[in-house]
């Protein structure tokens, strides 16, 4: 366990250059930061968002002509798992409800709770367990202008400035206006917020905030929120029915073109079934597990963009899907931690980034996207990355410097979770550097929604990472947990209002829009046997697949 002898040999080069680097650091001499032109050059050549290679114009659907990463374009330009007739859909109908929520993370669960509170019967369906979502992995916190020196006005400015002024303004207004309401809601539900003894919420700064408004629950805020929301939904089990390991594969519509629920696939019995619903909420999260351009990811197992595919086929345009957030420092070794996040704080405390020769190659506090591009360039173009025994490439993040700059014990004190995470595998990051590489962190774009969480399709709502616009081209820390709760709640409330005003009956349910989409694929001469939604990522080895003689794959799963 720990580093291999080969890696330990390479670490000697890091140790050899360390005294000189520490000396420079003490004198306040940094590696030279890039000029704006330099930034643009490295971004255009190496940042996955800017590189022309690995992307293409999408040829079908309501966002035809937009330029997306190949992995995402592939799932959009795919066939449906199946198209069944209206009569068959009727026959497959297993449940009828008022509000159907697809997705069991924080967004979906917020929607379910609010739809229930507003008088609706709800079915929440998820392809994994209720709560298996990126929500639980969010560590940093949740923003909200709860303090007297702050207000939604300043939160708005921070969000839109952070997003390079590209954000959809109405969504930012909704996000920032509702934030204190969400914090109060969570407090009322019994979330263990970090507080001062008198009950005042503790707040911190996050990157790009002008006021302190980052609320936390230890260093597992997302997990704490998910646990409380899920627990509360279980208190309301009479009205909120949860279907686990049931993967939505297509939205269905009624004869008037309104969303009418979804077609599901039971992952265990391999049966299809239909949930008919007057209103449907897509809260299926992002696409980290598509491993855009081969990147490892911080995302959970189910992040395969299913909701985006279904929503797109149903006629909902996409927004900001050209933009993905890569975190510069994901774990590249050991294999068991691949892709997991290493906080920016490590560089903030003074650790250098180094190549295989123990040399600095980048200023450590460039913006996230620039820092990522520089690491990629060092590894792939200059060939100065360190290749691991499992074929990963990375650069060193010299955490032992922190022990010298901040005093012995600083690593363990300042980075307790990271210290333990590496110690588990025999790596003491106060003594040896970490190996890092950029990791796919967050999908900035998604389905286009209004500030009510409604899409352009009647009866179809969406919330959270599955939607695009609120963060523009760049999301600030602490606004994703806020996004899912604010728009999850709005989706639930507005879906319930839609149900109340619902006229007529759901009749003539069909998948005509999927049929039309197939025709569009044919007209665009896209001939493919790809099937989407993927449902799960496929990590089966080629050697295994070759021997699965009677098996084929539909999307990511064996069929």
């Amino acid at each position, binding site marked *: 366990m720990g580093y291999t002898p080969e890696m330990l040999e390479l670490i000697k080069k890091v140790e050899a250059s360390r005294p000189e680097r520490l000396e420079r650091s003490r004198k306040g001499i940094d590696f030279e930061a890039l000029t704006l032109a330099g930034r643009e050059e490295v971004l255009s050549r190496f940042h996955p968002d800017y590189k022309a290679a690995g992307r293409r114009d999408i040829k079908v659907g309501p966002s035809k002509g937009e330029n997306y990463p190949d992995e995402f374009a592939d799932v959009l330009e795919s066939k449906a798992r199946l198209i069944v007739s209206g009569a068959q859909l009727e026959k497959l109908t297993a449940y009828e409800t008022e509000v159907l929520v697809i997705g069991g993370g924080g967004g979906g669960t917020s929607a379910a709770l609010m739809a229930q509170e507003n008088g609706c019967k709800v079915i929440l369906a998820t392809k994994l367990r209720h709560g298996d979502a990126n929500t639980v992995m969010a560590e940093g916190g949740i923003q909200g202008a709860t303090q007297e020196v702050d207000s939604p006005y300043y939160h708005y400015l921070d969000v839109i400035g952070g997003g390079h002024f590209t954000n959809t303004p109405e969504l930012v207004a909704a996000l920032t206006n509702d934030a204190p309401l969400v914090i109060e809601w969570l407090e009322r539900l019994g979330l263990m917020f970090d507080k001062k003894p008198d009950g005042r919420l503790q707040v911190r700064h996050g990157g790009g905030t002008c006021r302190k408004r980052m609320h936390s629950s230890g260093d597992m805020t997302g997990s704490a929120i998910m646990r409380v929301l899920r627990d509360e939904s279980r*208190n309301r089990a009479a009205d909120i029915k949860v279907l686990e390991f049931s993967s939505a594969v297509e939205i269905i519509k009624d004869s008037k073109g309104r969303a009418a629920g979804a077609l599901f696939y039971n992952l265990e019995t391999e049966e299809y079934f239909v949930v008919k619903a007057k209103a449907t909420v897509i809260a299926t999260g992002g696409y980290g597990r598509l491993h855009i351009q081969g990147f490892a990811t911080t995302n959970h197992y189910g992040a395969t963009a299913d909701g985006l595919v279904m929503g797109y086929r149903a006629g909902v345009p996409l927004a900001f899907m050209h933009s993905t957030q890569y975190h510069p420092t994901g774990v590249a070794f050991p294999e068991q931690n691949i892709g997991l996040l290493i906080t920016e704080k490590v560089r903030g405390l003074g650790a250098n980034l180094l190549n295989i020769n123990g040399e600095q190659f980048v200023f450590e506090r460039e913006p996230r996207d620039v820092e990522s591009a520089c690491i990629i360039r060092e590894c792939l173009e200059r060939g100065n990355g360190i290749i691991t025994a499992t074929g990963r490439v990375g650069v060193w993040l010299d955490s032992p410097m922190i022990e010298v700059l901040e005093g012995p014990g600083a690593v363990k004190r300042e980075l307790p979770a990271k210290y333990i995470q590496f110690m588990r595998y025999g790596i003491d990051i106060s003594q040896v550097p970490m190996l890092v590489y950029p990791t796919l962190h967050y999908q900035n774009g998604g389905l286009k929604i209004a500030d009510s969480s409604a899409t352009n399709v009647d009866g179809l709502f969406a919330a959270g990472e599955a939607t695009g616009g609120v963060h523009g081209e760049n999301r600030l820390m602490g606004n994703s947990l806020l996004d899912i709760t604010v728009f999850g709640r709005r989706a639930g409330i507005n879906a319930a209002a839609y149900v109340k005003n619902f006229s007529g009956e759901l009749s003539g349910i069909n998948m005509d829009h999927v049929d039309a989409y197939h025709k569009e694929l044919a007209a665009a001469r896209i001939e493919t046997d790809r099937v989407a939604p993927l449902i799960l990522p496929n990590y089966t080895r080629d050697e295994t697949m070759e021997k699965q003689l009677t098996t084929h794959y539909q999307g990511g799963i064996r069929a």
Partner: protein
Amino acid sequence: MSEAKKEIRVATGDRAILPEGTKLVPIFIMGKQYRVPETMTIQKAVEYAGYQFIRSCGCRGGICGACPTVYRIAGDYHLHFCLACQTVVQADMYLTQLPFFPANRAAYDIEKVDASAETIMKLYPEVMKCVACNTCTKACPMEIEVMEYVNAAMRGDIAKAARLSFDCIQCGLCSSRCPAQIQHFHLAQLCRRLHAKYQVPAAQHLKPRVADINAGKFVNMLKELVAGDEDGLRKLYVDREMEPQESSDWQPQDKNFL
């Protein structure tokens, strides 16, 4: 130039590329032998063996609780508990995963309970049957003092139970092992919610802010920003007064938008 330049065959996604000569070790997945690379986690080794997870796999980062795993090493009677995504395989390990464990969860109205031993007794009376064997603690992959928090809850020390159980990922291993049939993780969740809602003081400063928002105080301010052109917004952004890191008594100059 380093050798890396010649051979940039980089592993993508979650699939490893194994170098020549990688040592394989035998593991027994539900009793059946597979040979897997010795450095892999149990989770990736099971995938390497040819399984595709439907259950027993979630965040792959040690926080969701989907992959609790039980194993023994051949020839050793000790039983071990872990998360498959966080544990490296060992030769001759006999393992199985526990994708689900039945546990009754008592329904309650959070607005109509109080943080007392009586609430605990009423909702989870089986807590009193704890025989103090500490098996729950030994089974916890998060190293939580499970028995300690159960005992605290039993005594009505809800605050202690909440604090001790804070890292719980609700994987269910504790409850799978309990001879008293306690449903620890649901009990712990109840304690945390009771503690946060009824024992920790409410944030008084939040109430006027919520009232202001509900009265629409910020609607027009936000409308102005929504309608603002980019140059104007850029100026407002650049001119923001920054709250300092150390800021106990800090006040902004401009209070028109608070």
